């Protein structure tokens, strides 16, 4: 308990409080009167309104598109299922810079839609919504599908035997069992879209601004700290409310359901209806997920003088431009190194937190659980600026240290670790430990002999997630990454920021490399998925 608490106090609570305090304190007194002033400004109200409704719309759209997918991935067994499951998760960890570029290529001028039907969606709300669905498809498929694959189909069959119609059986038996999982997934999607930054900035054009984008503008561009602080508090309140709801649904989900091995529930699709459903879902995955990714790959090979490896070759040299002090391909190594350290930190902190949450119950602990999720919903710019003004004195003078990058990434990784570990740890029967203790094992030995074998796979899955999140993390990293050690997303952003065909092509090639690295680590995850990693 102590380690995660200290970690969050030093690297999250303290920096965030400091930066909010800069904006809201004058002469040591908190000026909460400013909250009202800021919230009565029409432009701020516009931002709040847009943030809320686009998040609601994105969530609804994601559920509509992804729920059939959750069913298909949970209940059908078809060739390539594992590969596809990994592929649909790739977007979730891709940096928004890359996604924004891909979607512009798809929906913008001369994009695919433009060529086929003369439709252009860039700088419209539709582009934002579609990109949000692209990002969050996996959240629904994993959260809902994870549970769906373990529901005992015999319960529904029993209802059918007792005379219920197919629809009624689903409505009365399956849906209530799935309800909390759907709610939890919806809340997660709502949280991610409510705090959306990169997507809105790139695809929305200047006319649309979410709370997160506005916080960034007020802090980094206008240096209007009071306004930024008020907006940060508003976002805090909103995210807190969402997380509280989420925690409540998760607790409901851990209620007793009869779960079975997913291997028993997946079957080959039968009959025209099921085949149609499967093909429809595959079609959606193809258009929504593979197409944007494919555009990137296509452009990375489309070199001067036809298709080839020109851009990939260019990645291995420093070039004449001085954009990089090292060849861009070195970014792969940097990213991997940072990700390993970030994963270690996230596992240590998240694992200890999950253990503490399993052992104890009570309101305080539940509050701590929600607290651990907060970094998911607090803007990177707030945390980054907070780092700048707090971590500047020994013993915590970390501003120039490389460790800051993995620390910031671990902050985002911890919630995933906790989410993955918690259900498994809670499923470990305490009496086993007690039996070991009675037989004379020390607490450490009991943990090693009893818990570890049971949670090893969950640990691996958690590690994989933390790793993938760290690879794609952009917001906080761009704040602190040093020019001689850029990470993959930072290098992509830098290449996109320079004119000329070679730079553009290299950015596409590097994005493709990032995609492959993410996909491979996720595929490895698929191989070792636990039976009960239903929470995410």
């Amino acid at each position, binding site marked *: 308990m102590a380690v995660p608490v200290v970690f969050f106090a030093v690297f999250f609570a303290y920096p965030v409080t400091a930066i909010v305090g800069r904006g809201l304190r004058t002469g040591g007194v908190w000026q909460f009167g400013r909250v009202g002033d800021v919230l009565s400004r029409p432009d701020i109200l516009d931002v709040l309104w847009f943030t809320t409704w686009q998040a609601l719309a994105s969530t609804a759209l994601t559920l509509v598109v992804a729920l059939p997918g959750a069913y298909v991935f949970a209940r059908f067994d078809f060739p390539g299922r594992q590969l596809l499951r990994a592929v649909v998760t790739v977007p979730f960890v891709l940096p928004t810079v890359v996604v924004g570029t891909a979607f512009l290529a798809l929906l913008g001028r*001369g994009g695919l839609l433009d060529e086929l039907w003369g439709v252009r969606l860039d700088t419209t709300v539709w582009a934002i919504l579609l990109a949000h669905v692209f990002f969050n498809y996996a959240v629904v498929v994993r959260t809902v599908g994870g549970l769906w694959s373990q529901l005992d189909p015999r319960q529904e069959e029993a209802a059918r035997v007792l005379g219920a119609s197919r629809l009624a059986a689903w409505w009365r038996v399956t849906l209530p069992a799935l309800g909390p999982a759907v709610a939890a997934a919806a809340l997660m999607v709502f949280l991610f879209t409510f705090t959306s930054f990169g997507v809105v900035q790139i695809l929305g054009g200047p006319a649309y601004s979410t709370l997160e984008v506005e916080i960034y503008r007020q802090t980094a561009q206008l240096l209007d700290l009071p306004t930024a602080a008020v907006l940060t508090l508003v976002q805090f309140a909103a995210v807190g409310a969402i997380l509280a709801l989420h925690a409540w649904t998760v607790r409901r989900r851990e209620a007793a359901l009869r779960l079975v091995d997913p291997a028993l529930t997946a079957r080959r699709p039968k009959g025209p209806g099921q085949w149609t459903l499967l093909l429809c879902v595959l079609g959606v995955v193809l258009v929504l997920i593979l197409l944007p990714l494919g555009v990137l790959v296509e452009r990375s090979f489309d070199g001067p003088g036809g298709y080839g490896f020109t851009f990939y070759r260019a990645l291995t040299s420093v070039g004449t431009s001085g954009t990089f002090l090292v060849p861009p391909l070195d970014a792969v190594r940097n990213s991997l190194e940072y990700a390993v350290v970030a994963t270690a930190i996230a596992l240590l902190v998240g694992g200890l937190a999950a253990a503490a949450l399993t052992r104890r119950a009570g309101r305080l602990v539940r509050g701590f659980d929600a607290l651990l999720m907060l970094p998911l919903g607090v803007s990177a710019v707030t945390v980054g600026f907070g780092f700048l003004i707090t971590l500047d004195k020994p013993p915590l003078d*970390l501003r120039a240290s490389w460790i800051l990058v993995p620390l910031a990434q671990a902050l985002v990784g911890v919630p995933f670790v906790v989410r993955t570990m918690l259900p498994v740890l809670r499923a470990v029967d305490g009496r086993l430990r007690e039996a070991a203790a009675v037989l004379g094992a020390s607490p450490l030995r009991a943990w090693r002999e009893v818990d570890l074998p049971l949670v090893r796979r969950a640990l691996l899955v958690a590690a994989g997630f933390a790793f993938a999140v760290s690879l794609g993390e952009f917001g906080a990293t761009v704040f602190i990454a040093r020019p001689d050690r850029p990470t993959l997303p930072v290098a992509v952003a830098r290449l996109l920021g320079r004119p000329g065909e070679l730079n553009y092509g290299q950015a596409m090639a590097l994005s493709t490399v990032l995609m492959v690295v993410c996909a491979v680590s996720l595929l490895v995850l698929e191989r070792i998925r636990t039976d009960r990693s239903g929470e995410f």
Partner: protein
Amino acid sequence: MTHARRTAGLALVAALGVSTLAACGGSDGTESSGGDGGGTKSKTVTLVSHDSFNASPAVLKAFTKETGYTVKVLKSGDAGEALNKEILTKGSPQGDVFFGVDNTLLSRALDNGLFTPYQAKGLDRVAADTRLDAAKNRVTPIDTGDICVNYDKKYFADKKLAPPQSFDDLIKPEYKNLLVTENVATSSPGLGFLLGTVAHSGDSGWQDYWKKLKANGVQVVDSWEQAYNESFSGSAGGKKANGDRPLVVSYASSPPVEVLYSEPRPKVAPTGVATGTCFRQIEFAGLLGGAKNEAGGKALLDFLISDRFQADMPLNMFVNPVVKAVPLPPLFTEFGATADRPETVAPDKIAANREQWIQTWTSLVVK
């Protein structure tokens, strides 16, 4: 509780262990700037800058050879963001010298008292019209660049239409729906272009000018990257993305860059510059107040206006030197364009009106 405290202690020890190990791992040669334990003269000088800073490694090595100081570069976001970070951390700066405050942000930096005055060696060789703080020398001019409309040569040749040359041309009906520019709130070329129109049409006339520009179908995107690499039809990226705007707000140095990064290298630049639509940007550097290594910082400022660095700059940052004696590289003279009479606005006037202009522009053009 003692147990818990011991765990925390262990974790801290472990964390410190990790960082020490890492510090010893050769890949991370420089020590952190906070790490010199006072008394010993630091051999590292830290330059804080925006993302666009670049210098040839050989040139930085030459500086080390001359002075014994190793330069560590810290890039911290775009120009506005990098400056705001320094204002936030005033008194406990991240480095010794800050490079990249331009004339549109200069007053904000000076009003916040960021810099320690220092008269760099060789300042007399710097063009006088760039020395905006000549009385106090809190900042030293380093480079200039012009923000101008670029045009896609092929488009205008195919259409047999003369490309626009001035602000007044841009609102003519034959150039309807051709121009893409950047959001002035989030992009420095965007802001530069707005300031150019303010200087051109006057305090009262610029809003009218923008109304006409809007009626003439100007498109606004958030960043230079999007405008240049996605919407503009003349750049390599834009060609791939089928950009449909043959006019874009960019820099006078963009055509040479377009040539430099094309393989094989073309005989003529694919894009041209409308030289009557330019706004002059001047970038400055200054010694940060509270710098840990003041002597090193001063040496670095001297170096930034030395011939060696000035000559190296154009091809790394695509800007023009401020030292008159330094010649432009052939690529610039061959493919670039010089604005005959770039527009300017005084820094204090910018400081007094910037927010208001941005807000007015936003409600006028994008909302």
